[in-house]
């Protein structure tokens, strides 16, 4: 490898090590991951430190660059709650804050953690089955019914339903106390996030330190995901089940992770609107009709999953889903009601429940918790209020505490009394918890290591061989040196977690062994929503290209110092077209130059290049799992190119340059989609969108610039707009004249910019789309395009006029709506209005 350097001398290494550790001082009274109580580096960090110190500062910077570039290139991002602009779902996404120092944990210690997390997953899973089933724990007094009913995630319609609370993926947020023991801070059973981010962190850091993974024997993560997937497959009644990942959509804070995992695990990414109930079963709406969904891995909260029987205000779910679950016709993971055991109130009962259900003591204790719904516990909490953190007993519990835990000692006397009064009045809404001090782990800052408090999220999956724990996890590191667990809310940095093994580790990837791969060419099913978005992505991109070409033609003529005959007339027509499709403002006071600038940069013009690029990016963001990283990046580049700095007024030359550069980015996207996208139905819809838009735009250009009275400069402009200048000149020695130009632009099937060429392509693409009819009759899109193709092939340039060109344009629009009617969701959903009124 290029970065491999000659081994530095022992002295250099020692110097680097001293500099790195200079000033590393663990906080008093907390456990530090790197440095032991004796002030010595803990031995399991030594291999990492020595590898690190073998690198010069320049090499390190380069390595970090590799990791950061991986993060940037894959578009790893997250979103902060409330940071949402529905018009632009990619706004508010944050780059992923990756710490370059992993958390290192020994294999021996990990065994305890893994055993503890698996045990807890097992317990919670059995408890869920009991709550939604026989209810023995409640009947025999080990769990008050009101600890269950207080949770908004206890979903009564799932009571008694098969798999109503089935747990498939569990996560525990752990912290390490001052005595070195690990504690469970919080259970995650609803729809745990972070497993995909853990995987991403691993990929990023393995870019930076590939050799360390080998020398330190770091446990791999892939086997865990394989087990998780096998667990989902096992829950289906079909051998090759269709597994969907149900996402809340691009506005969700972890949408990136969801698209990433769908791709990694080979699941179909769907939104609620993609699913529909028919005859008691859940189906995906695809371009080939309704296809059964066997297993749904949901990333929406259970309560939002069915607007009929659960939260009526939800637009994320599927009407009737609960009924399908009751009938057992679909398996949902985690079960819709699984969130109920996340309640803090439950934590005070878990040790006793563990004894009863598993006959075991808990390997990992949870934070000591007292539910104030019990008179004795409440009195106890109130008598020791100053040592406690008071937290809502349930998600979104009342009493004005829904902001999360508070440390009573931090409150003013007045606030404390108010809190006491609330706990006395409705104790059931609160728990008292011991204040936990978190351990610290090193982060690299200003060339040195610094201790920072952290929590560790560990994942367990229900596999056919029982609960398996991911050997690693998602470490969140606070930037505040305050080590109390309650002050670490979302964490500001995250880090990879390295579990070292004593021997070499198994190398598992999600790719099956070569001899067991069944050969497949076209992958899976294309949901109608994805088809819709790809189609519009194609149209927006092509519209952007047409606008850019108009702008370039306009500016080219303005800059050109040698005015040809009819120039002003052509300028007027070009500007008129920009105005008519909403790219530039019309009216007095506008010059061609100001209109060209608006057509590039004006956000308030819906047809400007920047606006259609933004629309393209918004559309693409919904189908990100179907686009390559390179393609996605191009949208960002284009948006940047077209964004005008505050108060900047570019010259005509600069504007020309901008249009030119943006056209190049578009060409790059076309190249990528031509060369790198599989010719499946997805590509087909993208291409159909582009061809239709190009055909329609070319007809419009022809109508505007190829009248019989048009000056030759107008025909010249038409050749520019259709990028056919060179072809024309190679064929005809004379300047532009009407019929040859019309033939080249409209009817020539060999010119890839002509209308005829677009129609030919549409004919091919549409022929290859799946058909729903079995009676041999042609479906509407196919019927229309055949007719149009026949018209086009038999047309003659000498007979083309405004009216006949307009007819082509209208027929193309007819094809567009026929495709939309047939393949997209518009008529059959997404869920429309609701019945209202007191009935």
């Amino acid at each position, binding site marked *: 490898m290029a970065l491999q350097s000659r081994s530095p001398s022992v002295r250099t290494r020692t110097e680097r090590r001293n500099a790195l550790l200079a000033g590393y001082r663990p906080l008093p009274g907390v456990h530090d991951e790197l440095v032991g109580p004796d002030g010595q580096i803990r031995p399991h960090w030594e291999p990492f430190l020595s590898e690190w110190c073998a690198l010069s500062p320049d090499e390190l910077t380069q390595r970090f660059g590799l990791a950061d570039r991986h993060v940037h290139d894959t578009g790893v991002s997250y979103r902060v709650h409330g940071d949402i602009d529905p018009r632009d779902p990619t706004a508010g996404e944050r780059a992923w804050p990756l710490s370059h120092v992993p958390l290192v944990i020994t294999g021996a210690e990990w065994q305890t953690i893994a055993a503890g997390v698996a045990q807890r997953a097992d317990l919670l899973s059995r408890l869920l089955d009991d709550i939604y089933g026989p*209810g023995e724990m409640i009947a025999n007094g080990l769990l008050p*019914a009101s600890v269950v009913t207080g949770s908004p995630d206890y979903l*009564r319609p799932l009571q008694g339903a098969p798999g109503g609370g089935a747990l498939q993926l569990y996560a525990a947020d752990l912290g390490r106390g001052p005595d070195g023991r690990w504690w469970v801070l919080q259970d995650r059973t609803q729809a745990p996030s972070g497993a995909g981010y853990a995987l991403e962190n691993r990929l990023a850091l393995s870019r930076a330190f590939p050799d360390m993974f080998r020398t330190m024997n770091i446990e791999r993560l892939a086997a865990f995901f394989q087990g998780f997937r096998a667990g989902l497959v096992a829950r289906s009644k079909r051998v090759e089940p269709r597994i969907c990942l149900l996402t809340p959509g691009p506005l969700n804070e972890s949408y990136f992770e969801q698209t990433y995992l769908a791709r990694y695990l080979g699941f179909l990414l769907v939104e609620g609107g993609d699913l529909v*109930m028919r005859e008691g079963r859940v189906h995906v709406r695809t371009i080939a009709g309704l296809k059964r969904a066997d297993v749904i891995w949901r990333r929406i909260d259970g309560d939002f999953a069915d607007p*009929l029987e659960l939260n*009526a205000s939800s637009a994320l779910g599927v009407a009737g889903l609960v009924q399908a679950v009751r009938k057992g016709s679909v398996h949902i993971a985690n079960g819709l009601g699984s969130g109920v055991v996340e309640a803090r109130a439950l934590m005070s009962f878990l040790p006793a429940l563990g004894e009863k259900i598993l006959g075991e003591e808990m390997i990992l204790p949870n934070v000591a918790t007292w539910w104030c719904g019990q008179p004795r516990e409440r009195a106890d909490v109130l008598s020791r209020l100053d040592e406690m953190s008071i937290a809502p007993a349930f998600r979104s519990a009342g009493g004005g505490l829904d902001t999360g835990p508070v440390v009573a000692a931090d409150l003013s006397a007045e606030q404390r009394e108010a809190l006491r009064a609330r706990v006395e009045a409705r104790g059931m809404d609160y728990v008292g918890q011991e204040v936990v001090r978190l351990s610290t782990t090193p982060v690299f800052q200003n060339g040195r290591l610094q201790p920072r408090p952290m929590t560790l999220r560990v994942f367990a999956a229900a596999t056919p061989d029982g609960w398996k724990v991911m050997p690693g996890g998602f470490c969140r590191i606070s930037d505040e040196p305050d080590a109390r667990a309650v002050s670490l809310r979302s964490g500001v940095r995250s880090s990879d977690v390295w579990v070292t093994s004593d021997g070499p580790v198994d190398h598992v990837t999600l790719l099956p062994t070569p001899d067991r791969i069944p050969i497949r060419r076209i992958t899976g099913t294309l949901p109608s929503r994805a088809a819709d978005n790809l189609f519009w992505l194609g149209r927006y991109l092509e519209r952007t290209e047409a606008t850019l070409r108009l702008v370039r033609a306009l500016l080219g003529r303005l800059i050109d110092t040698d005015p040809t005959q009819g120039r002003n007339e052509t300028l007027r027509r070009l500007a008129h077209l920009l105005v008519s499709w909403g790219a530039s403002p019309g009216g007095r006071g506008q010059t061609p130059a100001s209109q060209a600038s608006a057509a590039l940069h004006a956000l308030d013009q819906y047809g400007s290049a920047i606006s259609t690029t933004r629309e393209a990016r918004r559309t693409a963001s919904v189908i990100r799992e179907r686009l390559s990283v390179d393609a996605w990046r191009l949208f960002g580049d284009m948006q940047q190119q077209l964004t005008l700095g505050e108060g900047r007024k570019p010259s005509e030359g600069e504007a020309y340059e901008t249009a030119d550069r943006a056209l190049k980015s578009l060409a790059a996207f076309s190249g990528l989609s031509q060369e790198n996208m599989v010719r499946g139905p997805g590509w087909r819809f993208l291409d159909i969108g582009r061809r239709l838009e190009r055909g329609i735009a070319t007809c419009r250009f022809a109508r505007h610039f190829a009248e019989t009275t048009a000056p030759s400069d107008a025909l010249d402009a038409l050749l520019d707009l259709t990028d056919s200048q060179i072809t024309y000149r190679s064929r005809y020695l004379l300047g532009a004249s009407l019929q040859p130009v019309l033939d080249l632009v409209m009817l020539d099937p060999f010119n890839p910019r002509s209308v005829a060429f677009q129609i030919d392509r549409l004919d091919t693409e549409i022929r290859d789309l799946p058909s729903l009819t079995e009676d041999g009759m042609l479906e509407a899109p196919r019927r229309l395009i055949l007719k149009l193709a026949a018209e086009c092939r038999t047309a003659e340039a000498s007979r083309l006029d405004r009216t006949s060109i307009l007819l082509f344009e209208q027929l193309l629009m007819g094809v567009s709506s026929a495709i939309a009617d047939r393949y997209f969701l518009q008529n059959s959903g997404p869920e*429309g209005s609701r019945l209202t*009124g007191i009935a």
Partner: protein
Amino acid sequence: MIYDVRHITTYGYSRPVPFARCILRLQPRDDGGQSVQRSELIVTPRPAERVDDICFFGNRMTTLTISKPHRELKVEMRARVEVRRTPPPFPGLTRHWEAVGALALASDSLAPDSPAHHLYPSRLVPPVSAVTDYARQSFAPQRPVLEAASELMGRIRREFTYDPEATEVSTPLEEAFRERHGVCQDFAHVMIAGLRGLGLPAAYVSGYIRTIPPPGEKRLEGADASHAWVMLWCGPETGWIGLDPTNDLIVADDHIVTAFGRDYADVSPLDGVVIGPGSQKIGIAVDVIPVG
């Protein structure tokens, strides 16, 4: 008392609706001093799928799918119900309210009639401290629970204005409370919020009330209405008692219960999702006729 109840709901759409999925909770309950002698649900157009079921709280629930285009959806419920409730206990002899709250909280049952379901905020009944304070004025320490709750009910009857124009299904409880106006649904939600704020298990009931036309006037066809009130759990011996804050009545044989839940969202008589553009118009006709 035996009643014939007829409840017709009609949705008219400005444009044809190709697909609808609805959930109906319209047929009366067959328990708690009520016996349903017959009951039927007629839906036009004929649904493609229909599932009759009992929901968690024991209410009758019907799920429908209509998959052919229609401009009108008509749901007609007819039932004959005999109502013969055990007379309510003397309010002054019920347990004191703090004990009732403690017993409910310690409940060891998730059964549909368990008080544990009705102690906490629900979708349409959020915690509102002003409402709790309002309710508390009737709940002196150690006061018998039904006596205190009846007083609260009477205060709502006197201090709130019944005004069908003032609120809609979507009007938040806080607003109805602040303005002291609304319809039966609002009064029930306000009273439930107050009782739950004090830690008492309170539920929401939908149904009908027998109306007696003014002297000398004939009963008007279809002019009755659906109704809503509150149920309060008064301890294991007494169980659930109905309290109607709109009329300041402890429920006896003039009320017919359709459905029971935590708030309106659990029992809404007709809820659904229709697909298609256009606006909708709703028509409702209710008749409650005592037949013996």
